[in-house]
């Protein structure tokens, strides 16, 4: 059980929130991909990291960005905020896979 207090007490709030979101993860296909990881080195703000509502983008020590698709909520934010470099290949998951909202 995740209480309201759990979600606001520290920066791990988002992880706790995502832990109760239900997904049917497609084991064989990542529906989103960073096209060229080197392009991210030219991106000053790397706004995909702070804009993603599911923390799917993580900064790497070498300056690149690591994307993990498993927790993606399929909103489309990352593709739209990468408007300077268009470095994200974005498709929807295969039918039936991905996030499954029980309430919405």
């Amino acid at each position, binding site marked *: 059980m995740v209480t309201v207090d759990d979600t606001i007490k520290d920066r791990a709030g988002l992880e706790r*929130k995502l832990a109760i979101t239900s997904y049917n993860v497609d084991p064989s296909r990542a529906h989103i991909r960073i096209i060229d990881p080197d392009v991210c080195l030219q991106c000053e703000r790397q706004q995909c990291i702070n804009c993603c509502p599911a923390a799917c983008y993580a900064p790497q020590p070498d300056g690149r960005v690591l994307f993990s698709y498993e927790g993606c909520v399929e909103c489309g934010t990352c593709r*739209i905020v990468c408007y300077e470099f268009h470095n994200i290949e974005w498709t929807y998951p295969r039918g039936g896979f991905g996030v499954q909202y029980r309430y919405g």
Partner: protein
Amino acid sequence: MSLERVDVIIVGAGPAGVAAGLPLAQSGLEVVILERGGYPGSKNVMGGILYRQPTEALVPGFWREAPLERAIIEQRYVVLTEDSAIGLSYRTQAFAQEPYNAFSVMRAEWDRWFAQQAEAAGAFIATGMTVEDLVWRDGAIAGVKAGEAGDELYADVVVLADGANSLLAQKAGLHREWHPSEQALVAKELIRLSEEVINERFNVPPGLGVAMEVFGQSTAGLLGYGFIYTNRETLSIGTGALLSDLIESGLNVSDMLDQFKRHPAIAPLLEGGELVEYSAHLIPEGGWHAMPTLFTDGAVVVGDAAGFVNPISREGSNFAMISGKLAAEAIIEAKQSGDFSAASLSRYQELLEESFILQDLYTIRNVTPFVHQRPYLLRDVPAALAAALRDYLTVDGTPKTVKYGKIARRLQAAFPPGRTLRDLLSGARMLR
């Protein structure tokens, strides 16, 4: 039913797609609705307010059987500063009785029920089907490519109801990619309390509820608003901002929502609650200036995919349903003439122009840029108002003439010099 060719293919079983499918099926056309989720609603999110009138235009008396949470009888507008809240509320018994005005709903339940109505009318809903691409014949859209095998399915008309993040409108050549200033991202949480606790905290009898729109600190001062809606035994709480403002501020919507939840005027409403779901979704807020072309040879665009949202008055699902219904009317007429060209489907645009949809989008076309260019409206003005009210309400022996002078100076300082009158005038003109 032969699955190779039908009269109409609808991509997306949300409110817009189903609202198109229902009357089309009722008129006897063969309709297939393709939904990428495991069930209608499984990918869909909204704050949670569904309006009665547009829904009733499709399913008369729906509130007697549809899965609804509470009928909304009270609207609260709140502005938060760091440690204060200013509010205005309106409550009426008129909204507490049939036919009601609006309801709080859960999209996963509502969408599934609404889709069942289209199914009962004869529409075929295929779930777990992601449309990968459009199929073209002689320069016209002639069908879709869907599912893992890339099966092709043909139709006279394809209705693009694939939501805020419509990739198909782009593939159809009707729209370019959105700019970050044209989409807002909202994070939402569903918080379980109990029916009794919600009744007490919001001062409502069972079955009736409250909608709150919250400005100021609910969005960390960014353009937009947070919301709290009462469901039967849960609260929907959310907040968001334009993607361009999230980029600029470096803020994350989940953090923004947590900050909203911590506010001393909000926290007591949520206290003791349990998080049952976290979700996030885009809202196409670009409006009139960002609208795609709405029809082409063999296809029309409806709902969020067309950017039909009025963020100022919190309307979207009603735009979706009415645009779906109007698309269905245009398609039924096109079927009678056997002409599915852009010229024939332009009837859809005519119907939209005659309705509130395009009229309202035109009316509010400059409101977002207006407020966006005046950040003091959501930051300095609420802070000055709150400080003025605190001065006024604090009894401390200060003579009233001194106090009133202080209040006047505070309010004056909140508005950049010389701007006030001009802003008021141009604001009023803008909505004429």
